[in-house]
């Protein structure tokens, strides 16, 4: 079963102006149900743009996306996916529980059912005692766990994440990665994950999609043969290092190729 099918995706910003940018060109990507796929690449490679096109927050200029066999637009209307960003994006005027309830309110669930689901989600992210606190009373890592709980509250089969751990310190980040894998294993959620971090991409993913900029495109897809049950020991596993090396080389390859193609334009 296919969770996400992207075919021939192209995205042009500022078309018809001198500031025209080819953000994405000819992107094909298939994500199977239950798979964890990361998008990695330098700034401007279009990874966040691709995520937003899958989310139907941006229309593609060319090509089409299906999510769970429907158009991306329809999938968004049906709340088929949950989303989490680098900023937790919680609402300060709502309690933690009511933040998690927000997507359920929009789905029209009644209060009791919402509250029960929020309690369930707080247990999933291991913060059950924080229901009545406000987001600003929580640490950055806790806020991000609440954001994940919110993204999963409506029980979506797909989770779209844009550098969700980018603002966290290294210790919290590794803990959150472990938590995310546990949650995904428990819920069977498919994940499309944007990151800058090579170890993060390798540790989490079944496949790492390496992208390059100007124009944004997929240059290679690295399979990570670590299996599904990963733990802190996985970080010492030779296959983990092999995965990191493979992703790094394919990023470096495009770096060298890119530098040769556009000498002197590297830092533009």
């Amino acid at each position, binding site marked *: 079963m296919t969770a996400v099918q992207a075919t021939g995706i192209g995205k042009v910003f500022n078309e018809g102006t001198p500031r025209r940018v080819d953000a994405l060109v000819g992107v094909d990507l298939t994500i199977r149900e239950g798979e964890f796929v990361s998008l990695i690449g330098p700034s401007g490679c279009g990874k966040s743009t691709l995520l937003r096109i899958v*989310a139907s927050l941006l229309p593609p200029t060319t090509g089409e996306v299906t999510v769970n066999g429907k158009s991306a637009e329809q999938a968004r209307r049906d709340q088929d996916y949950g989303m989490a960003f680098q900023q937790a994006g919680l*609402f*300060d005027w709502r309690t933690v529980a009511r933040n998690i309830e927000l997507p359920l309110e929009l789905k029209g669930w009644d209060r009791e059912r919402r509250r029960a689901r929020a309690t369930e989600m707080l247990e999933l992210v291991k913060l059950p005692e924080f229901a009545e606190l406000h987001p600003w009373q929580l640490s950055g890592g806790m806020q991000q766990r609440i954001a994940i709980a919110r993204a999963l509250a409506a029980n979506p089969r797909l989770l779209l994440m844009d550098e969700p751990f980018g603002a966290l310190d290294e210790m919290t980040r590794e803990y959150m990665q472990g938590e995310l894998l546990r949650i995904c294993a428990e819920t069977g959620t498919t994940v499309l994950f944007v990151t800058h971090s090579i170890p993060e991409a390798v540790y989490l993913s079944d496949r790492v999609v390496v992208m390059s900029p100007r124009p944004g495109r997929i240059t290679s897809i690295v399979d990570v043969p670590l299996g599904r049950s990963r733990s802190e020991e996985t970080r010492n596993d030779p296959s983990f290092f092999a995965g990191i090396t493979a992703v790094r080389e394919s990023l470096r390859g495009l770096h060298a190729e890119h530098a040769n193609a556009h000498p002197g334009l590297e830092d533009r």
Partner: protein
Amino acid sequence: MAVRPRDLAAPAAFGLAFAALWEGAVAAFDLKPYFLVPPSSIVAQFADNLGLIWDAASVSGLNAAVGLLAGTVLGGAMSFALSRWRFLGELATPLAVALNAIPIFVLVAVLNNMYSITSEVPRRIMVTLVVYFIVLVNVARGLTQVRPAHVELMRSYAASDSAILRKVRIPNAVPYLFTALTIAAPASVITAFVSEYFGGSQNGLGSRITSNIANSKNAAAWAYVLAACLLGLLFFLISVVLESAASKRGGAVSTGK
């Protein structure tokens, strides 16, 4: 915003010391009452004329309160319209910001001309206008300057514009409204006093100050000034209490991250 008695002790002592210095200066330099009256006779006048002062304060206070309420309601309503129809906002917002920065209360002279000489309406309209622009500018900002991540999140839930308004824009604007009220409440009292200087019935605190000065009753004039200060303070306190009540209800005011 919790005020402890200890926080009040120092300013209170300073105020009393200042009054004592004033009293002492009037006695030491033998200052004449037409130049400067001592605090003791101001307080005595205040006590003697309590009934009259209360009546005058009621007139000015009611003008300020009516204008504050009307201006808040109208300014709030208009800011919704401006955020709903973006082109309207682009037209009106720079104008509102400009008007907010100039002393528009001088318009009361023109308004006085439009109504009968004994009418309180022009004064109330003037207060309404001053409050209206303060509320409009701030609330419109609160409704439009929401975090892009929040709007994107709501769009990912396929939320309608009205749901985004109810669940993101309005809650975001609440602290802005209270900021506006802490500015508008003292401004409404000031406008109510100043509008009385432009003619009309001689019934409010502002006009009583001028009429007592005109009759060389300087101590009485100062007593009305004292009452005006107290009324202004009352309005400020009301807005502070409202603000702290609102921030307790809704958690902290947005951290602005």
